[in-house]
């Protein structure tokens, strides 16, 4: 299922990005050469993560990750492949209307393709770096991630707690 979603996602990204003038880039490219893309329209694909910060000015701030975990979450059988790679994104609140909650421990956030202007050290925002989103397309809806509780771990924990209680009782008697 995950593989199909990922392939579909990549296909959409390659074949039909919403704004043809924008250059398709990764978050890694933006972070490693932030100046190169300053003021340019770019398209980035990834998972919305963390929180949707609804500001008073009618905009939303959130984070877009395009690391491997965005496509293959650990709790969906993904492997450990290093740290997260993400960028801050900012856009009008109506872009996020009705969108699934962002990714966290117990859920994968929506996979989206966003197109916007890359702002590097924006002088109007105190030197912050982010993507000013103009359009947002949902490629895969967010979904819950199942956690598996290990019976062995639970049992081991219970045994240790009982043993500790015994040791503490013994210490108290002495």
């Amino acid at each position, binding site marked *: 299922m995950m593989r199909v979603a990922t392939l579909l996602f990549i296909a959409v990204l390659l074949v039909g990005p919403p704004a043809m003038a924008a250059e398709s880039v990764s978050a890694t490219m933006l*972070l*490693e050469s*932030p100046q190169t893309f300053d003021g340019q329209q770019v398209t980035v694909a990834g998972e919305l*993560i*963390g*929180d*949707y*910060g*609804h*500001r*008073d000015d009618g905009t*939303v*701030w959130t*984070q877009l*990750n395009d690391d491997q*975990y965005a496509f293959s*979450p*650990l*709790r969906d059988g993904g492997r*450990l*492949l*290093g*740290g*997260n790679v*993400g960028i*801050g994104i*900012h856009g009008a609140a109506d872009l996020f209307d009705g969108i699934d909650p962002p*990714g*966290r*421990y*117990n859920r994968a956030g929506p996979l989206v393709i966003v197109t916007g202007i890359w702002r590097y*050290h*924006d*002088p109007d*925002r*105190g*030197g*912050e*770096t*982010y993507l000013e989103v103009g359009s947002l397309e949902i490629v895969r809806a967010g979904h819950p*991630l199942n*956690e*598996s*509780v*290990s019976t062995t*771990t*639970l049992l081991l*924990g*219970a*045994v*240790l*707690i009982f043993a*500790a*209680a*015994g*040791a*503490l009782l*013994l*210490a108290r008697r*002495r």
Partner: protein
Amino acid sequence: MLLRPTTNDLRLIAYNVARMLLISAVAGVVPLLWAVATGELAPAADFLVMIGVFALLGGIGVALKPANDRLDWSHGMVVVALIWLVVPVIGAVPLFLSGNFASWLDAFFDAMSGITTTGLTLAQDIDHMASSMILWRHILHFLGGQGIIIAALSLFSGAGTATLYFGEGRDDRIYPSVRSTSRFIWLVAIVNGIAGILALMLVAYLDLGFGFMRSFFHAATIFMAAFDTGGFAPQSTSIGYYHSAPFEVVIAVLMIAGVMSFGVHFALWRRRSVMGNLETKTILFTFSGTLVLTMIGLAAARAYGSAAGLGRQAFFQVLSAHSGTGFSTIPSSELATWGGLAFGGMTIAMALGGMASSTSGGVKSLRVGLTVKSIASQVKQVLLPEGAVISDRFYQNGPRHLTDEFKQGVMAISLLYVALYLLGGGIGLAAHIPLQNALFESISAAANVGLSVGVTTPAMPDVLKITYAFQMWAGRLEFISVFALVGFLWSLARGK
């Protein structure tokens, strides 16, 4: 003749370490309850195992209480060094079981980084990490910063327990009794905690637009990391995640509160001025100096298009470095490009560190001030006529004499920090890391800062992970307890 420790010595050490393990077990209940409340059941099971190990070892150790439980200096120092090793070893258990770490060494590295209030991390996919696991990492900051031993001293009394307090690298004695001093330190933490969490929550809720519970979660975790100058953050992009100047202002205030010694907190509570203190003057001077250096470096590189941007970013990064917190509003890949004066400013800020008896690391401002004063006195001695007597005095909560013995102690610890910085830098170089990055990361680890230029990753060689973990431990304890433990182990092996 080197004397082998007796059974009573071993039982005494085990008993005192055990008491701290029981406190750690109680601390572990907080993330367990959070995990259950938020439906994170797999992490809840992981915490159960950790609490069980803490409590079992604690129970066994307490049962070993010897008849004579008076701690002397050497016992106290060994106990402190062991606690700061054993707690991260066990505290790493849920981290390892979480699946966010590639190996137990990585999980141990994170736990050591947490408890030493460093903030370097080898965690993977933090953005999908269980909130209870994130909370535990921050509680480790709080335990280390406030810390475990202070908690124990507040609760337990016993002959010789003052050695534990001093063994942790603290030398402020606010009240005549260490127990009262410990309680005052907790009072400071609680008052700052309530004010800090409320302020952060308000900004998160009203300005950032987060929901109520998420505002609380971000506020609580960021408070623990800021006030205890730790540096872990709930999201992978650190403080850059929030994109909010008001949020950064509150964090900056908390970092400043964290970098102040508890003696300064006490003086401020009593509305006494601390501006005459050598330490206050030194830290104001070094902070201003490193900030100016960094700003000149960034301006020369034309890194920012506006003075406001340059000022905001440089101020936050330098304050984070000088206070030993390790928060950042820019990615590590960008920090790695800061060369020249900006690199110099940041590195010096990290190496010098905050105030003595605070939660920050590094050489510490009082030592820096005293070192400069000692050098000035030496120069004066040379310039004055032979036989002239110079009285070295300084002001630190009252006039004090700068004796030769005091000078030697200050110089020795300062030199040990320099040696520790160089040791990590040298091993980094041997691991084929460029000099500038190797030095930056080594100082960041040894001074318990936590800023990274991208060297600290799960892919770095194990030898570097072990080196940085050792640096965090030795730097946090200010060496003496570490030497005491080495001496103790030596006497255990070779004593008669």
